[in-house]
């Protein structure tokens, strides 16, 4: 999957640092099981336009802890790399 981005500031969720926030622009998942996980993310509230805040990154390239719609989620790093957000300017 290409990671070139047409919009400015659009980065993978993994590029956000602790405390930074962004708005979900897309979840890029391929076919097969990727679709299942995309659907799961949507069902957990990561729909386009939703604000996401990175609370913490687990050590040693572990999962990322995010805050979305008032709930706290842990998302595996691989999956987090497929979530693209527009970074919020500070």
């Amino acid at each position: 999957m290409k990671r070139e981005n047409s919009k400015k500031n659009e980065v993978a969720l993994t590029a956000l640092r602790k405390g930074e926030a962004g708005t979900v622009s897309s979840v890029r998942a391929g076919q097969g099981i990727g679709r299942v996980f995309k659907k799961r993310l949507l069902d957990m509230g990561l729909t386009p336009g939703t604000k996401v805040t990175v609370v913490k990154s687990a050590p040693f390239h572990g999962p990322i802890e995010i805050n979305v719609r008032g709930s706290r989620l842990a998302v595996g790093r691989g999956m987090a790399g497929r979530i693209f957000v527009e970074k919020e300017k500070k």
Partner: protein
Amino acid sequence: MNEKKLLIALAGNANVGKSVIFNYLTGLHQHIGNWPGKTVERAEGTLRFRGYTIDIVDLPGIYSLSTYSLEELVSRKYIAVERPDIVINVVDASVLERNLFFTLQLMELETPMVIALNQMDIAKGKGIQIDSAALETMLEVPVIPTVAVKGVGIDKLLEKAIEAVEKGSNEKPPQVMYGEEVEKRLGVLVKKMKGIQFVYPPRYVAIKLLEGDKEIDQEFGRIAPDVVSVAKKLAGEIERLHGHGCSTVMTSERYEAAGCIARATQKLVPPIKPTSEERLHDLTTHKVTGYAILIFSLLAIFYSIFTFGDFTSGLLSDLLYGLEPFFTGAFGTGIIGALVWGGIMEGLIAGITIVLPYIVPFYIILFFLENSGYLSRIAFLMDNVMHKMGLHGKAFIPMMLGFGCNVPACLGCRIMETKREKLLAAFVTTLVPCAACTVIILGLVGRFLGLQWALAIYLFDLVIIFALGRLAFKVVPGESTALIMEMHTYRWPHAKTILQQTWFRVAEFIKIAFPLIIVGSFALKLADVSGALENVAAVLSPITVVWLGLPAITGVTLIFGVLRKELSLVMLGALLGTTNFALVLSPVQMVVFTLVAMLYIPCIATIAALVKDFGWKKSLFITGFEIAFAILVGGIAFRLLTLLT
């Protein structure tokens, strides 16, 4: 009418206190099984209330009603096909928006429902105030605020549920209004469906067809393929209009609706200082303190369980073996006496001395950790390691259980999402040395060769687990999956719920394991008294003596180990006539014997647990593989160690 019956289903997200409400309502009148043909758990219970006999089904905790997981499919089908009189939707007041997203989907199923607005106390702690009356008005569904762990509001919830059934309103609950582009197309589809009878209501079918729901595509496609193809075309139109997939668009709009309701009914006054729950969360997920706490907790848990287990196990077995004279008195010391005592009773004792001392405390601690929220933090910290085996963080939990006993650990693999992950996790789990293996490792290698050798064997096993897990992950077809997990706010768990959950797990264990342990023990005793065991030793000697370099008699004791692993050591002592194994086994033989006993086969109860969830074929494959693998490793170890010494 004398007997008034009601069927109530509990539905809601995971970790919202659904099981607390379920346990509060049904007490010990419950039954836990599997949904027919599925590895999804089904909890049912009954209670009497206001002259009604009420059956309650606790549906799995889910976040949506699509068909992307077995749990979701099972729940949706249950509501549509079994048509419970009313659904109690348990909603976590502290995460209102996401919970309402699920509520709105239940409403799309057009099922009569009431809402338990639960965990009001946690919401309050987070500075969230909810106007439940306003929520009731907006949703047009009764809303009852509850704090399930304290029993607050539960009776009222039940009253309201019964009241709603008695009123029996045929009015449809209000529906989410999607955007104009979507609504127009839903209208077209619903019109086309006129006159077609289907389990789900027409609007729901239209929504799911647009979303490309696999199950409904297939089932409805059999009745009206033309409608499905029109839906595909319409979904394509929406995708072009919005630039996102149709399913994404509709999920977004549904979430928008949930967000609107949440914003209109809740007030947020975030506390100025981070709460103690927050600080605990930070500490337990921190890169230094998090792991330190994790290691410390695990060591403390294992140490206390083994100390307690060892002590109680010894006590119980002394007590139970004290019954032997009565049995020999009643049945004599002949063949019948030997079969009754050595076959049936010793099997029963073997079972009892593992359940009470080890499994009960293990479950209590497990449920304490789960209900408090710590298990999800463990999964968060261990995700990375587990990924190397194609699993994600949650799989660490059954593995951890496996150190106590493989049976609950294999059953615990149900928490994984896909079939493949469940199987991989179960396979890895059967390799974890359980309490019984620990008895062999410590009792033979630890006692006669020193603790460092016992630790080396443990480490070696961990390496094997990791290597085989990785191998299985490469061999079993399918894609690697990802962790997507909610980490709910820490809370003090509800003691009664923990005890009830423990009780039902232990009952399940007894049901699966005891018959097999007793029958197996009886069969072995029968083989013993008929002299067949000596033949077995002779038949197995090419493996035991030639390949593994062990005394021939170990062939017999290893067979006993199938019942319960440490029996292979106990029997070895009995058959060799001494427990001072240093006299009869060389150090190399001790290591080889321990390695083989540790790896060679999941015990009979574990095999039964595997069969229950994965069927005979896969279970026998795992069993066969592990026997072959243990013999291979044992033989190699024998040769290598002989060379070295």
